[in-house]
C-alpha cells in the first residue's frame, strides 16, 4: 500500500493551484457565469500552453503522456478554483473516448488539436427522460448511404454552444437489451440541422439543449463499432463520474478553507466565532467529510486508472459519498458565514450552487446507491 502522491503529482498540484489562483480569480468566475460563451479564450490558450489539454494524451498526439491520476489531481485543483469553461467537456468527455475507442485516423485528426487547445468537444448523452442508463438513449441515427442521419433531442449537454464537435450517443437499432444497439458519432457542431440553446442552471455551467433535425454524419465519424457503443459510453461515463468527483473534492477543500479563515477572523461577543465549541464541531464535521471524500476519490480513481474489475462499484461508492459530502460541507460553510455567505458578492455561494450541480451530473446519490445495492447482490 502507498497512500502518498508522487513528487511529480505534488508539483503538478502546486503549480496548478498557483496558476489558477493568479489567472482565474473569482471576479472572472462571476463574470463568466454571465458571459454568453462562459469561458475565457485567453485563459484557455494559457492552459493549452501548459499542456493541460493533452495531459493524459500520448506524446505521439502531442500530449504529455501522464496518467489518469495526474488528471484527477489537476481536476481537483480546477474544482477548488471552480474554473469555468470547456476543459471537462473537451478533455474528459471528449478526448478520452476518442483515445480509447477511436480509429487511428480519428485519433490523428482530433487528439493533437485537442492538445493544442484548438478543438472544443463535448458528449451528448442525456435525453429528456433524464435517465443515466442505456435505456435512456432513444435518439435515432439511421443509415442513409454512406452517412447516418440523427434525429432527436439531447439535454444537459455541457458547452455544446461552443463545441466544435459533439460526441452523440445514439440508438441505431432496437436491441435485445437496452445496451445493445447504441452507436456513437463525432458530429460536427456546425452541421445543418443542429439547434443549440444554453439552459440557465443552478451551477451556471452552460448546459445546453441540443436538437438534432435530420443531421447528417459521415460513416467515417462513427466512434467505435456499429451497435456496440454502450461499452465505450459506459467507460466514458465512469471516467466522467470520477473526474466530476475530483472537482467536487477540490470544491469541498476550498469551502472548508474559506470557512476556517472566516471563523478565525469574525468576532462576536468579543471573540472569534471559531473559538465557540458549536462552530468548532461544525468545522470538525466538515473536515471529516473532506478527509473521507479525498481518500474515497483517490481509491476509486486508482481503481479506474489500473483498470481493475471493482472500478465501477468504487466509482459509484465515491460519487454517492462525495455528492452528499460536498452538499454538507457547503451548507455548513454558508451557515458559518452567516448572512454575508448568502449574498451574490460572497464566494461561498458559488460553491454551494456547484455542489448541487455536481450531484446531478453523472448520477445523483439515489442512482449511485442503487448501483451499490446491485453490487451487494440485493
Amino acid at each position: 500500500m502507498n497512500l502518498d502522491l508522487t513528487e511529480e503529482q505534488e508539483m503538478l498540484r502546486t503549480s496548478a493551484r498557483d496558476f489558477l489562483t493568479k489567472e482565474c480569480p473569482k471576479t472572472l468566475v462571476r463574470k463568466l457565469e454571465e458571459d454568453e460563451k462562459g469561458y475565457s479564450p485567453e485563459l484557455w490558450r494559457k492552459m493549452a500552453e501548459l499542456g493541460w489539454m493533452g495531459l493524459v494524451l500520448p506524446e505521439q498526439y502531442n500530449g504529455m503522456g501522464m496518467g489518469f491520476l495526474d488528471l484527477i489531481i489537476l481536476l481537483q485543483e480546477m474544482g477548488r478554483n471552480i474554473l469555468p469553461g470547456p476543459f471537462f467537456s473537451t478533455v474528459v468527455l471528449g478526448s478520452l473516448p476518442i483515445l480509447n475507442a477511436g480509429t487511428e485516423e480519428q485519433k490523428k485528426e482530433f487528439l493533437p488539436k485537442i492538445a493544442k487547445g484548438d478543438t472544443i468537444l463535448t458528449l451528448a448523452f442525456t435525453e429528456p427522460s433524464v435517465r443515466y442508463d442505456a435505456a435512456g438513449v432513444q435518439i435515432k441515427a439511421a443509415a442513409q448511404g454512406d452517412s447516418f442521419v440523427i434525429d432527436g433531442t439531447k439535454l444537459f449537454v455541457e458547452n455544446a454552444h461552443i463545441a466544435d464537435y459533439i460526441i452523440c450517443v445514439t440508438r441505431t437499432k432496437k436491441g435485445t437489451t437496452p445496451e445493445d444497439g447504441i452507436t456513437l458519432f463525432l458530429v460536427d457542431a456546425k452541421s445543418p440541422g443542429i439547434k443549440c440553446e444554453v439552459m440557465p442552471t443552478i451551477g451556471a455551467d452552460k448546459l445546453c439543449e441540443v436538437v438534432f433535425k435530420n443531421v447528417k454524419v459521415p460513416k467515417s465519424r462513427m466512434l467505435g463499432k456499429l451497435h456496440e457503443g454502450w461499452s465505450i459510453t459506459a467507460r466514458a461515463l465512469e471516467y466522467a463520474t470520477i473526474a466530476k468527483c475530483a472537482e467536487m473534492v477540490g470544491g469541498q477543500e476550498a469551502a472548508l478553507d474559506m470557512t476556517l479563515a472566516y471563523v478565525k477572523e469574525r468576532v462576536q461577543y468579543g471573540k472569534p466565532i471559531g473559538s465557540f465549541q458549536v462552530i468548532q464541531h461544525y468545522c470538525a464535521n466538515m473536515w471529516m467529510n473532506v478527509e473521507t471524500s479525498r481518500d474515497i476519490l483517490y481509491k476509486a480513481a486508482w481503481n479506474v486508472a489500473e483498470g481493475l474489475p471493482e472500478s465501477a462499484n468504487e466509482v459509484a461508492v465515491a460519487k454517492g459519498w462525495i455528492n452528499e459530502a460536498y452538499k454538507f460541507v457547503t451548507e455548513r460553510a454558508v451557515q458559518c458565514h452567516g448572512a454575508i455567505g448568502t449574498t451574490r458578492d460572497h464566494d461561498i455561494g458559488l460553491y454551494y450552487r456547484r455542489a448541487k450541480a455536481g450531484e446531478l451530473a453523472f448520477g445523483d446519490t439515489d442512482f449511485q446507491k442503487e448501483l451499490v445495492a446491485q453490487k451487494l447482490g440485493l
Partner: protein
Amino acid sequence: MDFRFTAQQEAFRQEVRDFLRSELGPDWRGGKTHEMFSREFSRKLGKKGWIGIGWPKEYGGLGRPHMDQLVFGEEMLYGRAPSAAHILAQNMVGPTLMNVGSEEHKKKFLPMILSGEVVFCLAYTEPQAGSDLASLQTNARAEGDYFIINGQKTFISFAGDADYGWIGVRTDPNAPKKHRGISIFIVDMKTPGITTRKLDTMFDHTLYEVFFDDAKVHKSCVVGQLNQGWYYITQALDHERVFMAATIAGYQRIFDEIVEYAKSTKRNGIPLSKDPIIRQKLSEMAIDLHAGRLLGYRLAWLLEQGIVPFSEASISKVFTSELEKRLGNLGMQVLGLYGQLQRGTPQAPYDGYLEWEYRFSPMQAVGGGANEIQRIIIAIAGLGLPR
C-alpha cells in the same frame, strides 16, 4: 498511489483467518463483551506469538509494520476473536513500559503480557473526572518507601478480573498545573485496601467502581518518573491508534449478516432485499463502511510513515463510533419486529446479536474520549481554531 496489500500481507490475513476458524470453530458468534474476555484464548494467542506482533523484536515482539498489524487487527475483529484479556496490556501497558518503564518493570511485565498470562485494567476515570480527566482526585501520599493511595475510580472494565491495575493518581496536589501532578502506578489488585463494586450496563457488560482506602504500595510501583503521568497517558494513546484503524472490520461482519438476512428473508411476499427503502439503507451503510475503512487505512499509513496522526485518529474515532450507532439501528430495522428478540429466543435471528448491538453501540461514542471532546481536539489541534 497503490491501495493493494502485498501478497505477504494477504497470506498473513489468510493465516490469521484459518487460525481463528480452527480455534473458535465455524459457528463462533461471540461479540458480547464478556465473551470477548478469555484468558484461555489469550494464552493460546500468546503461544502462537500473536500478542505484540507490532512490538520491537528486542522486547519479544515480531516487529511487524503497521500495515501488517492492520491486517491482523481486521481479521481479529471480523472473526470476533476474544481479545479483551490481553488487548489493554498489549496496546497500552507494554508500549508505555518499553518507552519509559524501569528495567524491573520491563523484565517483570513484558514477558507476561506476551504470553497472555496477565490481565490489566485501566483505571483513570473518576466520578468527578470524566472528560476533564486531569482533574482526577485519587491521591497517593509518599510514606518512606511506600505510597498510600486513597480515592475512587469508576466505569472500569474488567477490574474484577484483572491481576493488575494501571491507575492514574495525583502525587503532587500543589503542582502549578493540574496536569503536572499526576503519576501512573501499577498496583496489584489484591493489595489490601483495594476493593471493587459491580456496575452493570445496559449492554450486559459489568463495569466496576474501584475504591482505594489507605492502599499501601511500594514506590517501585510508580511507572517511569513521578508526576509525568499525564504525558504517559496521552502518549500511550498512540499505540491504540493502529488498532483503531481496523475497527471497521468488526462492523463489516455485522453488516454482512444484515445483508445476508435481507437476501434470505421474505416480507409481504418479496425478499427484503428487493424493497427499495431497504436497498437504499443497506447501500448507504456500505458506502459509510467504505469511508470508515479508508480513514483507518490512512491512519495506519501515516503511522507507518512515522507520523503521529493526532487529528486523523480523532476523526476516525468519531466517524466509526457514530457509524456503529447507525449500524445498530439499521440491523434492528431490517429485522423488523424480530429485531427486538433477545438471545436464547428460538425465533431470534442471529441469536439476538443485533438486539444486543443496538444496546451496545452508544458505548464507543462515549468512551475513550467522548466525541464532543474529540471534535474540539480536531478543531483546535487539527484545524487551528482558537481556544
